[in-house]
């Protein structure tokens, strides 16, 4: 606690120092370092435009959802929509958290569902824990828990895609929801997920994943990072260009798998591969903001770097595999995705590779010229984006403490930029050396 407080204090002092410099230092002539100044303006402007588009479009996602629900309520008042749902929980060495995940699912307000837990070659006591929980649950169902079928499957060969495919084959639901075995599922999540499938055009939905362990600084960094990326999913959803349905919370119509097949067995990020294939087939993916799932973030730096390495490697692999999706003119493909979002994702990776140095670059320039305008602008933009995302979030009743992090958000994000940069370099090195990235074995603490 004291360590966390001291770190926040330090970050505040650092931010305060820069703000102080703006007011009390006289900038030197603007003609100094003209080339450096031009580079900074170019880089900062591209970032500003990118964030501007996302920040302006994203809030209209809430309007679109509220409007469609209002229209539906008017048209079909009292109509119930409760299709059978199968919830898949792939688990590999998840003895610390899998029981909590199952309990949270059973406390769901939605009743018409089954749970299928797939034990994917676990080497710890995951299987025993699941079986013992199912046995107890079937014998004496605790009061308040809904009566649903909970089944256990064992997959001898490792691989999340393989485990999920086994679950899909056994699933009887019309809608298939996949959640990770380290998650806590909010009681309304399943019902909220299902509500999006009232629209027959919706084939898949991505849930709102939040980091549950924010006790240490790394947890807070990941929390803010997830907040950022899931806020931007709103605009992706409006533009129909979501191409990542994270494994922690994704929902699909069963016919999706009949049409395009199951999860990839070779891709390390089977969820990104599947999402891109859904987009490739011209099916609609939406963002279910109110389907909230809390997940356990990486507890240490090496775990976080390995996670990001897996994401980066998987993304590079998926982009290369589906490269003909870039700038595609086929009618079934969303042009915003193929001409804007996907190229922007590549640009984002390049930007990420440069961002780490860019910030140091800006700092040195500011120091040499006493002109802190670009630095302070960056801080204001990032802090304001955090503040807007936190304050305007419908699902957060209390934002007082969280909003205090906004002024130092730019420094906290710098930690994640550093991690992402390392992962990017490792991913490229691995790609060039043709190394295979494996499904990560987590050291779970079970935080919920």
């Amino acid at each position, binding site marked *: 606690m004291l360590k966390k407080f001291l770190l926040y204090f330090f970050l505040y002092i650092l931010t305060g120092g820069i703000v102080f410099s703006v007011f009390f230092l006289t900038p030197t002539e603007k003609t100094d370092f003209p080339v450096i100044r031009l580079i900074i*303006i170019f880089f*900062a*402007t591209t970032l*500003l435009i990118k*964030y*501007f588009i996302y*920040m*302006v*479009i994203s*809030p*209209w996602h*809430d*309007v679109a*959802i*509220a*409007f469609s*629900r*209002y229209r539906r*309520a008017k048209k079909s008042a009292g109509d119930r929509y409760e299709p059978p749902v199968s919830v898949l929980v792939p688990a590999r060495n998840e003895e610390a958290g899998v029981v909590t995940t199952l309990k949270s699912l059973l406390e769901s307000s939605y009743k018409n569902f089954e749970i299928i837990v797939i034990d994917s070659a676990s080497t710890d006591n995951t299987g025993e824990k699941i079986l013992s929980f199912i046995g107890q649950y079937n014998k004496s169902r605790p009061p308040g828990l809904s009566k649903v079928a909970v089944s256990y499957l064992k997959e001898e060969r490792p691989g999340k895609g393989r485990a999920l495919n086994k679950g899909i084959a056994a699933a009887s639901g019309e809608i298939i929801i996949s959640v990770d075995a380290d998650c806590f599922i909010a009681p309304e999540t399943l019902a909220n997920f299902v509500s999006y499938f009232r629209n027959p055009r919706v084939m898949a939905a991505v849930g709102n994943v939040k980091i549950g362990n924010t006790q240490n600084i790394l947890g807070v960094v990941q929390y803010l990072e997830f907040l950022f990326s899931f806020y931007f999913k709103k605009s992706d959803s409006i533009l129909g260009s979501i191409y990542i349905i994270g494994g922690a919370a994704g929902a699909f119509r069963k016919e999706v798998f009949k049409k395009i097949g199951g999860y990839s067995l070779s891709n390390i990020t089977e969820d990104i591969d599947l999402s891109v294939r859904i987009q490739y087939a011209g099916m609609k993916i939406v963002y279910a903001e109110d389907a909230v799932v809390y997940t356990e973030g990486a507890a240490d730096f090496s775990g976080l770097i390995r996670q990001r390495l897996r994401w980066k490697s998987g993304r590079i692999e998926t982009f290369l595999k589906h490269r003909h999706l870039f700038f595609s003119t086929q009618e079934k493909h969303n042009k915003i995705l193929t001409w804007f979002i996907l190229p922007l994702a590549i640009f984002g990776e390049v930007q990420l590779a440069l961002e780490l140095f860019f910030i140091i670059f800006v700092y040195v320039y500011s120091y040499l010229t006493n002109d802190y*305008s*670009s630095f*302070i*602008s960056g801080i*204001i*933009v990032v802090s*304001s*984006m955090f503040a*807007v995302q936190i*304050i*305007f979030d*419908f699902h957060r009743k209390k934002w007082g403490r969280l909003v205090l992090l906004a002024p130092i958000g730019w420094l906290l994000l710098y930690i994640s930029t550093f991690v992402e940069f390392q992962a990017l370099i490792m991913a490229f090195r691995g790609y060039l050396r043709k190394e295979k990235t494996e499904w990560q074995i987590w050291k779970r603490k079970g935080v919920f």
Partner: protein
Amino acid sequence: MNNNFLKLLKQAIIFFLASTVVIIFYVKFFDHIAMLAYRLVAIFLSLVLISNLAAKLLTYYFRLKKE
């Protein structure tokens, strides 16, 4: 008018006043300093705030109408 509506109205007024103060502050303050970066940031923030505020009010409106 029910309590829910008054609560939402109160929130909307607070957001509106807060964003107005922020916008006036940025425009006045940065006009004085007159730097390109600050002007860009002021425009960025103003539009983001207006967009978020308008979207929030419209969302409230449709939610209330649904009820």
